[in-house]
C-alpha cells in the first residue's frame, strides 16, 4: 500500500489517502500525468483496471473520471480520480487501453455514455447504446431524455436503417473468391441470448469475432438516479435475474457507508444466507447452460428440479421467486419466520441427495472432457491483464474472491477457502461452478445454523433485528462497494449530493462486460462448434453485460 502512495506522492496530487482496508484513494491534479502514473502502477503490480467511471457534475462544470485499479494477487487497490472539463471539445484524456487491455470496453462505454474522448484508443466506437443515440451522450446530466423519446418512430427507423446498411455492407470488403463470410450469431439465435456476435469465418473456421451488445440496455445506471434510495433496489436487482440478491447487497452497502449506518448481525447473516441461495440458483443455471450449449439438456432439467426448492425458500421469505427485492439499505427487507427454514432444509436435503449423480454423469462426462479440455484456455497472466473475475479467474488459478479479499456482510466470520482450478480451460470453469455450488450450500448450512442458534439463545430477534433505520435524505458523499457476485466481482460507485433523496450517480461495474471482451481473443482460430461452448463457459449474463 505504501509503495502505491509513494508513487502517487511523486506526482502532483490533490490528496492521497487510505480508504477502507484495501484501498488507496487519490486525486490527480493534471490529466497529463495519467499515462506515466499508470505505467508506474502497472510496474508496481496493479495489473488490472477494474473499470472507468465518469461522473458528470453539471453545476461545477466538471467531468470527474474515476479509475479503479486492482492487484488480484496482493489485494491492493487504488481509486484514482481526475477532473476533466465538461465541454465536448476539451473533454478528452489519454486512453489507458495500450497499458491496461481491460480498459478497452470500459473506455468505449464512457465514450458512448458521457462523450469522454479517449486519445489513442485503438477502437473507439459506440458500445451498448443503440444507433439512435449516435452523437448523443445519454448519461450526461443535461441530456434531454423526453425530447429523445418523443421521436420514437424516427429512432426505431434509425436503428432499422443502420442494421440494413450494415448487412448490405459487411461483406463488401471480403474476397469474393474465398469462402469467407460474416455470420450473425444472435440476437435471436438458440444459444446466444440477446447479444449478437459478428462472426467473420472461413467455412467452419473463425477468423475474428466482434460482439455487438446492448440488446437489453435498460440504462439502469440512469434509471436509478430517478428513484429514491429504497426504490432503487428494484433497478439494481435487475442487473441479472439469476443472482439478484448480491447486487442489492452491494448497493445497500454503498448507501449505508454514506449514511454511516451499521446493520445488525442478524441482517448481515441474512445477507449471507440469501446471497448464497441466489448464488446457488445462478450456478445451477450456469451448469445447465454449459451442457445445453453442447446439445444436452438433461443437466439443465435436473438442475431446474433442485433449483425450484431453493426458489421456494426465496418465495416464502420475500413473496417472489426471482426478483425478490429483499435486501435494502439498513438490512434486509423482511423479518424472518423461523418456519421458513423448513423449506430451506428441504432444499438442502434435495441438493445433498441429488448432487452425487450430477457429478457422476456430467462432471465426469468423458465426451464433455473431449470437447472442453483444450478450448477457451485463459492463462493467469490474461486474467490479470483483462481484469477477469469470479469463476473465470479462479479457474485459471488466480486466487481472487471478494468474500475473502474484502469481507462484507458476515463473511469475515466464515472460514472460507479459495476454490481454484489450474488450467483455465472451459472444462475448468465448468468444474469451478460445480465446486462453488457445493461450497455455497455449505455456507448456507453454516449461516442457517448460526441464525438458528442465535435466535434460540435470544441474541437475535428475527422479527425485529432485520432493519436499521436509514435516513431518507443522505449527506453529500461517495462510496464504493464490492461484492462477489455469482459471475464475478461487482463494483458499485455511488455518488450523492447534499440532502440527497436520490442517488446522483451509480456506476455498476459488471463482470460479464470484461468476460465478453475476451470472446474475440478466445475464439480466433477455433471452429463454429466452439462458439457456444466457450460463450457458455464464460458464464455471461446479458443483463449485467448491457445494464
Amino acid at each position: 500500500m505504501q509503495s502505491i502512495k509513494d508513487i502517487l506522492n511523486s506526482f502532483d496530487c490533490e490528496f492521497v489517502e487510505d480508504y477502507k482496508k484495501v484501498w488507496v484513494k487519490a486525486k490527480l491534479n493534471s490529466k497529463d500525468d495519467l499515462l506515466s502514473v499508470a505505467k508506474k502502477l502497472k510496474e508496481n503490480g496493479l495489473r488490472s483496471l477494474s473499470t472507468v467511471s465518469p461522473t458528470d457534475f453539471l453545476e461545477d462544470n466538471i467531468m470527474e473520471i474515476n479509475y479503479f485499479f486492482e492487484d488480484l494477487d496482493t489485494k491492493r487497490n487504488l481509486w484514482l480520480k481526475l477532473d476533466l472539463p465538461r465541454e465536448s471539445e476539451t473533454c478528452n484524456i489519454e486512453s489507458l487501453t495500450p497499458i491496461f487491455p481491460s480498459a478497452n470496453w470500459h473506455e468505449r462505454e464512457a465514450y458512448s455514455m458521457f462523450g469522454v474522448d479517449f486519445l489513442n484508443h485503438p477502437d473507439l466506437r459506440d458500445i451498448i447504446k443503440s444507433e439512435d443515440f449516435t452523437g448523443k451522450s445519454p448519461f450526461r446530466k443535461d441530456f434531454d431524455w423526453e425530447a429523445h423519446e418523443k421521436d420514437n418512430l424516427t429512432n426505431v427507423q434509425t436503428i432499422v436503417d443502420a442494421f440494413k446498411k450494415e448487412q448490405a455492407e459487411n461483406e463488401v470488403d471480403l474476397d469474393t473468391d474465398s469462402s469467407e463470410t460474416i455470420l450473425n450469431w444472435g440476437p435471436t439465435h438458440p444459444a446466444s441470448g440477446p447479444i449478437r456476435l459478428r462472426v467473420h469465418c472461413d467455412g467452419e473456421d473463425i477468423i475474428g469475432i466482434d460482439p455487438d451488445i446492448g440488446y437489453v440496455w435498460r440504462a439502469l445506471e440512469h434509471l436509478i438516479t430517478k428513484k429514491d434510495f429504497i426504490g432503487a433496489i428494484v433497478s439494481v436487482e435487475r442487473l441479472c435475474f439469476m443472482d439478484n440478491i448480491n447486487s442489492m447487497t452491494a448497493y445497500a452497502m454503498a448507501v449505508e457507508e454514506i449514511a454511516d449506518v451499521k446493520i445488525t448481525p442478524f441482517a448481515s447473516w441474512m445477507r449471507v444466507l440469501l446471497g448464497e441461495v441466489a448464488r446457488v440458483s445462478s450456478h445451477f443455471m450456469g451448469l445447465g447452460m454449459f451442457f445445453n450449449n453442447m446439445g444436452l439438456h438433461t443437466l439443465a432439467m435436473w438442475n431446474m428440479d433442485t433449483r425450484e426448492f431453493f426458489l421456494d425458500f426465496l418465495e416464502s421469505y420475500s413473496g417472489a421467486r426471482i426478483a425478490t427485492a429483499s435486501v435494502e439499505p439498513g438490512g434486509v427487507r423482511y423479518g424472518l419466520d423461523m418456519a421458513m427454514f423448513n423449506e430451506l432444509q428441504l432444499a438442502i436435503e434435495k441438493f445433498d441427495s441429488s448432487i452425487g449423480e450430477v457429478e457422476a454423469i456430467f462432471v465426469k462426462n468423458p465426451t464433455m472432457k473431449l470437447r472442453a479440455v483444450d478450448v477457451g484456455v485463459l492463462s493467469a497472466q490474461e486474467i490479470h491483464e483483462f481484469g477477469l473475475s469470479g469463476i473465470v479467474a479462479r479457474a485459471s488459478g488466480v486466487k481472487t474472491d471478494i468474500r475473502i479479499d474484502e469481507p462484507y456482510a458476515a463473511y469475515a466470520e466464515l472460514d472460507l477457502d479459495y476454490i481454484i482450478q489450474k488450467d483455465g480451460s472451459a472444462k475448468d470453469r465448468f468444474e469451478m461452478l460445480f465446486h462453488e455450488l457445493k461450497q455455497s450450500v455449505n455456507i448456507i448450512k453454516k449461516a442457517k445454523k448460526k441464525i438458528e442458534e442465535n435466535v434460540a439463545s435470544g441474541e437475535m430477534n428475527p422479527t425485529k433485528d432485520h432493519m436499521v433505520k436509514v435516513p431518507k435524505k443522505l449527506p453529500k458523499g461517495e462510496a464504493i462497494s464490492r461484492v462477489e457476485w455469482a459471475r464475478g466481482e461487482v463494483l458499485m460507485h455511488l455518488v450523492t449530493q447534499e440532502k440527497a433523496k436520490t442517488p446522483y450517480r451509480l456506476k455498476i461495474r459488471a463482470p460479464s462486460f470484461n468476460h465478453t471482451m475476451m470472446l474475440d481473443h478466445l475464439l480466433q482460430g477455433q471452429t463454429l462448434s466452439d462458439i457456444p461452448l466457450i460463450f457458455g463457459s464464460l458464464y455471461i449474463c446479458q443483463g449485467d453485460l448491457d445494464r
Partner: protein
Amino acid sequence: MMQTITQAVVFPGLLYALIWAVGLFWFFRKFMATLHKRVGPKFNGIAGSYQTLFDFSKLLTKESITPDGVNPYLFSIMPPLALIIAMLPSAFIPWSDGFIVVGSDYGLLALVVLIGIEPFLLFLTGFGSNNKYSFLGGVRILTQSISMETSFFLAALSPGLLFGTMNLTSIVESSTWFSFLILLPGFILYFIALLGLLEQPPFNIPDAEQEIVYGFYTEYSGTNYFLLKIAEFAEFMAVFAGATTLFLGAYKGLLFDSYFFFFIKMILIAMFMMTLRAATPRITMAQMLRFSWKYMVPITLINLAWVLLAKSLFFMGA
C-alpha cells in the same frame, strides 16, 4: 393392383409411416421427459398422447413460407422427395413371416442404398435454402454422411457375407442365437454408424441448434417442415428395421414369430438411442471425422475379416 395400393398407402406405406412417426415422437417425448425428471406431454389424451397429433396437424395447416431468393422448386420438392425415399426401404423389409412387399435377392443392397441416399437429399435442402446457416448444415451433413456411411455399409454387409446371401428373408431365416453372437461386433458398429447417419448425439452435428440454428431445417416451416420431420422419423424406422432384420432376427420371437417382436426390437433400439441422447453431449466435426476414419472404418474392416473367419470356422461344413 389393389394390393399394391394398399401396401403403398396403408402398410407398410404412408399411413404406417405416419402412425409410426406420431407414436414414436410421443414416445420419445415421454421417455425423454422421464430421463429429464420432467412430466412431458400431459393434458391432451391419455398421457398426453394427442399432443403430438395436434402438433403435427398444426404444422400441416401452418403457412409454408418460401423465403426470398431461393430456388422455389428445389426448396419445395426436397421435403416430399425426402419423405418418399425415407419410406421406400419399408418395401424391402420382411415385416413378419412371409410378408414382404418386394422380395428381392438384392434386398440388402436396396436397403443400404436407400438409407444412404437420404443425407444427400437433406444436403440439397440446405443448399437450396439460400441461408448461411442452412448451407453450413448442408455441408456438415455431406461430410458426416460420407464418413459415416462407409462404416455403415461395411457393417451392414457383414450378415450378407456370413450367410452368403443378400436376400433379407433368407438372412432372417438363417439367423440363430449363435449367428447373433458372431454378428454382435457388427451390430455394435452398425449402431454407432446409425447414430451418425441419423444425426443423433453425439453425432448431431449437422442440425446443431446451438451452433448453426438447426442447419438445413432453418428456413423450413409449415407443411414442408412437417414433411421433413415425418421423413426423419420414417428414416428412423428404416434404420431400426434394417438393424432388426440384419442382426436381431426380425420377427423371430421367443415362443411364436410375429410382427410384435419386430416392433419390440425396434423400440428397444430406440430406447437405447434415447438414453444415449440424454447423457451425451455433441462432439465437433473434426472429432467426428477423426473418429470415423481413424477408428470406425478400420474396425469395420476388421469386423468383416472376423465374419469371414467365423464363416470358414463354423459355417463351411454345413
